């Protein structure tokens, strides 16, 4: 009798160990192999700059309060407050010590698209790699080339201020298992190259969903609520719904959306505000066809 119970206990323990091992394995950082990043050739700097503005790196990585050309010094240091604690955005200027000047393309690509740091560690999703995961290897290569042309800074940002357990990078594997996703975010009511380009810009580089999609308590996107609007993480007010179901932009034409992204003016000549100001300034630097693609995509997503 005792023998049987021991056997059951042992096999339960066995299952638990196998389960834990599987979970451990499933939640390990998963970079793409070196070969994925090989043979991409010389970067195209003009495209790299376009990717740079579409990706909005300056909004987080420029030194806080910098204006004009000083924004291109990606010295880091901005404090990003979140429900989990405060993140201090790192230096990604070409400085070989303080920045990413010493990184290989594979290290950079795996940070951007897999959320894996140069030491093989998980990165925090406050860096929007859950969106950048959609980037093509060519765009990653061109962006990396362009970043190297920007000024270097020796600034070292302070470490993040996160309480246990959020300070355990290993635990991010569980988060990724639940929420990391490089597939399409929502069914589209139109097809064609323009809408596809818009999808790439909105779901990927522009990381629009990071602000406009509501989150669950663990920080993952709520399902079925793509771009449906969310509370403002900075306090009062809301980040608006930008689906065709919005009381506001649901009434706008595609041309109205294009004008807003280019000039910051709504059809009522209200002017863009809040954290959208920097996004709009970045969008204004893109070629017109990119703003048109974004507008076409925003008209093709489900109305919420």
């Amino acid at each position, binding site marked *: 009798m005792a023998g049987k119970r021991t056997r059951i206990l042992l096999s339960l323990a066995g299952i638990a160990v196998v389960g834990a091992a599987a979970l451990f394995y499933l939640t390990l950082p998963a970079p793409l192999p070196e070969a994925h990043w090989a043979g991409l050739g010389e970067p195209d700097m003009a495209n790299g700059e376009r990717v740079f503005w579409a990706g909005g790196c300056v909004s987080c990585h420029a030194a806080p309060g910098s204006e004009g050309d000083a924004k291109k010094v990606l010295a880091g240091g901005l404090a990003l407050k979140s429900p989990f604690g405060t993140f201090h955005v790192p230096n990604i200027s070409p400085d070989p010590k303080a920045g990413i000047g010493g990184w290989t393309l594979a290290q950079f690509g795996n940070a951007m698209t897999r959320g894996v740091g140069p030491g093989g560690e998980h990165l925090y999703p406050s860096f929007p790699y859950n969106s950048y995961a959609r980037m093509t290897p060519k765009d990653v290569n061109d962006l990396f080339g362009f970043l190297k042309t920007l000024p270097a800074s020796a600034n070292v940002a302070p470490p993040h201020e996160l309480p246990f357990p959020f300070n355990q990078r290993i635990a991010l594997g569980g988060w990724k298992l639940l929420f990391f996703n490089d597939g399409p975010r929502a069914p589209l009511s139109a097809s064609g190259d323009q809408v596809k380009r818009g999808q790439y810009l909105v779901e990927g580089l522009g990381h629009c969903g990071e602000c406009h999609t509501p989150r669950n308590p663990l920080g993952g996107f709520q399902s079925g609520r793509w771009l449906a*609007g969310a509370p*403002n993480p900075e*306090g*009062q*007010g*809301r*980040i*608006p*719904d930008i689906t065709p179901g919005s*009381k*506001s932009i649901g009434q706008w034409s595609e041309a109205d959306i294009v004008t807003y992204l280019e*000039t*910051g*003016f709504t059809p*009522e*000549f*209200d*002017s*863009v*505000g*809040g*954290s959208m*100001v*920097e996004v*709009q300034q970045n969008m204004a630097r893109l070629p017109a066809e990119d703003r048109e693609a974004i507008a076409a995509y925003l008209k093709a997503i489900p109305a919420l």
Partner: protein
Amino acid sequence: MRFRLIATAALAAALGVGTALAAGTKDEREAIMKKIGGAMGQLVAITKDEKPYDAAVVKTALTTIAESVKAFPDQFPPGSEKNSPAASPKIWENMDDFKAKADKLHADAEGLLAQLPADKAGVGAAVKALGADCGACHQAYRLKVD
């Protein structure tokens, strides 16, 4: 005793509301901004070739913007923090900066009046310069409420 306390509290509350109503209602704030928005719309129509360049229209629009924004900070007296959800509480924390941003738009509109944009391209440059002033204040102090 208790009745007197309640009465005093009610009176104080009534007075508080009274001062808040004196200036800075949601309607007053929105009316000023709508005027400014409308004037901006007339300038943008010229840049988009929806209307021909007309010096008189440009002058009126710039005058409306300069005069309206001058009175705007008066709509945010102490105690009016809760009057409109689109006005960020940061306005009252940084009143000097808020006023400076209104002054900047006022000064830029006055500057353009002194050297009136002479053609469509000039109006385009004016829209860009003024638009940056709108964005700078809305970035810090205007909230969206859906």
